[in-house]
C-alpha cells in the first residue's frame, strides 16, 4: 500500500542545526513493519537517514522511536496498525533523552539510571556448589520482568521524567524489582531503602503510560507498585510516599471521603514544616476560588461510614 513516512530529522553537523520533518512516499505491504519502511527508505531513497536497528524481531531493543506520538519498537509496529492506505505515519526520536542525529537518541542517561540501582545479584553467602534451590513458582514469575529488553520506550513516554529528569524512571525500577523479587538476592532491604528516597519509587504518578507502550509486556508501573508494597511491608523508614498511602487509607477508613488538607499535613508531618509552608500559596489560591474543602473536625463522615469501616476490618483480616 502507498504510505508516507514523515520523519523528524536532525543533523548536528549542519551549520545551524535544527530539527525538521522530511516526507518519504513509498510502497509497503500492510504486514510490513515501520522498520521495514525505514530500511527501505535507507536502501532505495535516502541512505543518509540515521537510525539504530539490528534484530528486526523485537528482541535487541535498538529501534525504540515515537510512532504517531507514542514510543514503540519500529520493528514490532505494523504499517497496518499505524496508518491507513494513503495516509501518513509520523516517526520521531524518543522523548526524555537528547537526540544525537535523526532517530538516534543518547541513551547514556538511561544507562546511568540502570547503574544507579546496582543491577546485579547480591546473594547472602558464597553460593552452594550446585545451583541455588528455589521453588519453581518463586522464580518463574521473574521471567515477566526479565523479558525487559532495555529499549527505553517506557522512559521516552514517562510523564514524570518529562517534568523531573531526576526520577529514576520505569525501566530502572522494573529492573530493581527483578532483584527485590528474586529469592536469591539478599540486598532487598538496602535496595528498598535506596528506592525509598526522593526520585525513587514514590515519584511515579501512576499514569500507566509505561504499561501501555512497553513492547514486551513488562508492565513497569505494576512493578513499581509491587516495590512500594514490599517497601511498606518491610517497613523501611517511612517517607512522604509511603505515608501518603497510609494516611490516605486512614482518612478513608475514618470518614469515608478524603480530607485533602489533612492528607497533605499528615503526609509531610509537622516536623517537615518547610514543605508545609510551601503549600501555603496553593492553599491561598484554593481559598480564593472557594475550593478549600472542610478539614479536621469540620470534615464530616459520609453516611454509611460503618459499612466502609467494616470493609476495612474485613480486608485487614484477609489481605
Amino acid at each position, binding site marked *: 500500500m502507498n504510505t508516507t513516512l514523515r520523519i523528524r530529522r536532525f543533523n548536528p553537523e549542519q551549520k545551524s542545526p535544527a530539527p525538521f520533518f522530511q516526507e518519504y512516499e513509498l510502497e509497503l505491504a500492510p504486514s510490513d513493519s515501520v522498520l521495514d519502511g525505514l530500511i527501505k527508505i535507507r536502501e532505495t531513497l535516502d541512505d543518509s537517514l540515521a537510525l539504530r536497528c*539490528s534484530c528486526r*524481531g523485537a528482541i535487541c531493543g535498538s529501534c525504540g522511536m515515537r510512532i504517531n506520538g507514542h514510543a514503540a519498537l519500529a520493528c514490532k509496529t505494523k504499517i497496518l496498525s499505524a496508518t491507513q492506505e494513503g495516509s501518513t505515519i509520523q516517526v520521531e526520536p524518543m522523548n526524555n533523552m537528547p537526540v544525537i542525529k535523526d532517530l538516534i537518541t543518547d541513551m547514556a542517561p538511561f544507562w546511568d539510571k540502570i547503574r544507579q540501582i546496582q543491577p546485579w545479584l547480591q546473594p547472602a553467602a558464597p553460593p552452594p556448589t550446585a545451583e541455588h534451590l528455589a521453588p519453581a513458582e518463586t522464580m518463574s514469575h521473574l521471567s515477566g520482568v526479565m523479558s525487559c529488553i532495555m529499549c527505553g520506550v517506557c522512559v521516552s513516554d514517562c510523564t514524570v521524567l518529562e517534568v523531573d529528569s531526576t526520577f529514576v524512571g520505569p525501566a530502572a525500577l522494573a529492573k530493581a524489582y527483578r532483584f527485590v523479587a528474586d529469592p536469591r538476592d539478599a540486598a532487598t532491604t538496602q535496595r528498598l531503602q535506596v528506592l525509598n528516597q526522593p526520585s525513587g519509587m514514590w515519584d511515579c504518578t501512576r499514569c500507566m503510560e509505561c504499561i501501555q507502550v512497553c513492547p514486551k509486556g513488562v508492565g513497569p508501573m505494576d512493578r513499581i507498585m509491587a516495590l512500594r508494597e514490599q517497601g511498606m511491608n518491610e517497613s523501611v523508614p517511612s517517607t512522604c510516599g509511603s505515608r501518603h498511602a497510609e494516611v490516605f487509607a486512614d482518612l478513608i477508613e475514618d470518614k469515608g471521603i478524603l480530607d485533602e488538607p489533612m492528607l497533605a499535613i499528615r503526609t509531610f508531618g509537622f516536623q517537615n514544616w518547610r514543605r508545609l509552608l510551601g503549600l501555603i500559596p496553593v492553599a491561598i489560591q484554593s481559598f480564593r476560588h472557594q475550593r478549600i474543602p472542610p478539614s479536621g473536625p469540620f470534615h464530616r463522615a459520609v453516611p454509611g461510614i460503618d459499612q466502609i469501616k467494616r470493609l476495612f476490618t474485613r480486608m485487614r483480616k484477609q489481605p
Partner: protein
Amino acid sequence: MSTVHTYDVLVVGAGLAGMRAALAAYQQGATVAILTKVHPVRSHSNAAQGGINAALTDRGDKWEDHAFETVKGSDYLGDQDAIEVLAKEAGDDIIALEHMGVIFNRNEEGRLGTRRFGGQKRARTFFVSDFTGQAMLHVLFEQILQAKLPIYEEWFVTSTVKDDHGRCAGVIAFEIRTGNFALFKAKAVILASGGLGRVYEPSTNALICTGDGMSLAYRAGAPLMDMEMVQYHPTTLKGKGLLISEAARGEGAYLLNSEGDRFMERYAPNMMELASRDVVSRAEQLEINEGRDINGCVLLDCRHLGKTVINDRLRQINEEAKTFANIDLAEEPIPIRPGMHYQMGGIKTDIDGRCWDINKEWKGLLGLFAAGETACVSLHGGNRLGANSLLDTVVFGRRAGACAAEYAKTLNDPKISEALVDVDHDLVSSILRRPSHDDTIARIRLEMGQTMNRHLSVFREEEGMRTARQVIHALKDRWLTVGITDKGHVFNTGLVNTLELGFMLDCAETIIAGALTRQESRGAHFRTDYLNRDDEDWLRHILLYHSANGSPEIDYLPVRITQWKPQTRVY
C-alpha cells in the same frame, strides 16, 4: 595525534563470548576493556531462544553422551579433544551462570529443569522460557557493570595492529558517535565479534552479524577454518527469514508437508523432527523441491501441544508468530522453510582460544585470541547441535579470557607506531570522498546475499559455486568505488555499513573457496555432484589464508579423534 588507550587484554565484542572472556580475564587480574559496535545488550546473543546444553552428572547425565552426540552431529568433522572440553566443563559453567543470576527454568524440586533439543537423545538443554540468550546476556552485562570494566560502546573496530615482533598488539577503532579514531594497544586481543549471517539473504541473523572479526583476523594473517560449513536452520519464516526456535520441536511440534504427512518418518525414523539440523533442513528442501510444499514452505504444527505448553514454554515464539506471520501457534500450523542461521567455521583457535599453534603444526597470529561464533575451535564441525553455541560462547569465552590474561602477564607493553591509525583514517576519508551514484551498498549486499543463498545453501554443486565466485569477485570491485550520501562524521550509519560490507565480501569469498575445495558431502555441506561422505580424503579441515593476489590460500589440518571412530550417521 590520535588518542591511545592501553590495556593488558582487549576484547572486541560484547556478546556472550566477549563478556564472558572479559570477566575471566579480569578475574585473572588483567586490565581489560571491551570494544563493541553496539551496546552490549543489543548484541546478537540475545536472539537465542531455545537454550544451552550441559550434561549434569548429578542428574544422571554423562558428559560422554553429550560429547558423542556433538561429534556425531558434526558429521565427525569436530575436533574431539575440544568437544571433550566443552562437554566436561559445561556443567560448571551452567552452575556459574545460575550463581551470577540467570533465572533458568526450574523443575518441581526447585532444581534447574531441561528440555529436549535436536540431535540428542536426552533432555539436557537448560533454558529460560524462550529467551535464554537474552536472559544470559543481560546477566553477564550486570556482572561487567559490577566489575566496572570499561566498555567502549558504539566503537567500530576497523583493523588489528601488530607490534615490531609481528605479534597482534591492539586494534584501531573509531567512535561511531563522533567519527574519532583511536589506537587501542594491548598485550592480547580477543575477537568475540559474532557471526556472519548477513552474508546471506535471507538470514535469521541480526543486521549487525557481518563477520567483521573473521575478516579482521583473516586480513591480519590468521587462518579461517571450516568456512564451507554454513548451517541452514529447519524452521525459519518466509520473507525476512526470522527464526522459529528449535524449542518448538523440542517441546514436540510436528513437521508436515502439503499432504499432511509427518515426512521426517522417511528421513529419520528414530529421531524424527529432532534429527540433526542439516538432516531436517535437507529433508524439508527435498519435500519442497518435489512439490509437496505450500508456497515454498512446509508446516510446523504446534496445535497438539496445547495452550498451556505454548503459553508457558513458547510464549515469545508464539508472540513472534503472531506479530510476524499473523499466526497463533495454538490455532494454526505455521509455514516455515530452511534458512541460513549459523557459521560453524571461523577463526581457527586451539582449545584456549589462541589463534596460533603452540606446537607449530599450523601457522597463525601470535597475540590474537578468538571465541564465540566468530571462532572455530572446531566444536561444531560440519553441523552444530542446537543449544551448543551458547555453551561454546561461555566455555570457550571463559577459557580464552583466562588464557589471554595469563599470556599478557608474560609481556611488556607493546610498541606500535601510532601512524598506523592513519591507514584506516585514510580509508574512511576516501570512502567519504567518493561521489554517491547509482550503485549502492544496499544493492551490492543484496546481490551478494542472494547469490550465496542460491549457490551455497542446502544443496551445492561445482558450477553454481563457480558462478558465485565470479559474482563476488565483481562485487568486490564495485565495493571499491561505491559511495554514500552522508559525508558527516557523527553516527554515519552508511559508513559503518560500507565497512561491514567489505568484511562480508571477504567472508563470502572464503565460504566459496572452502566449499569448492571440499569435494564430498558432509554435515551442512551437501554437494549434488559428490553425494557421499569421503573419510578417506576429506576427514580433515580446510584452512584458508589471505594471500596477496586476493584468492584464499588453502591448507589442511587433520581432524583430532580421541575416542569416537567415524561411523555412518543415521538418526
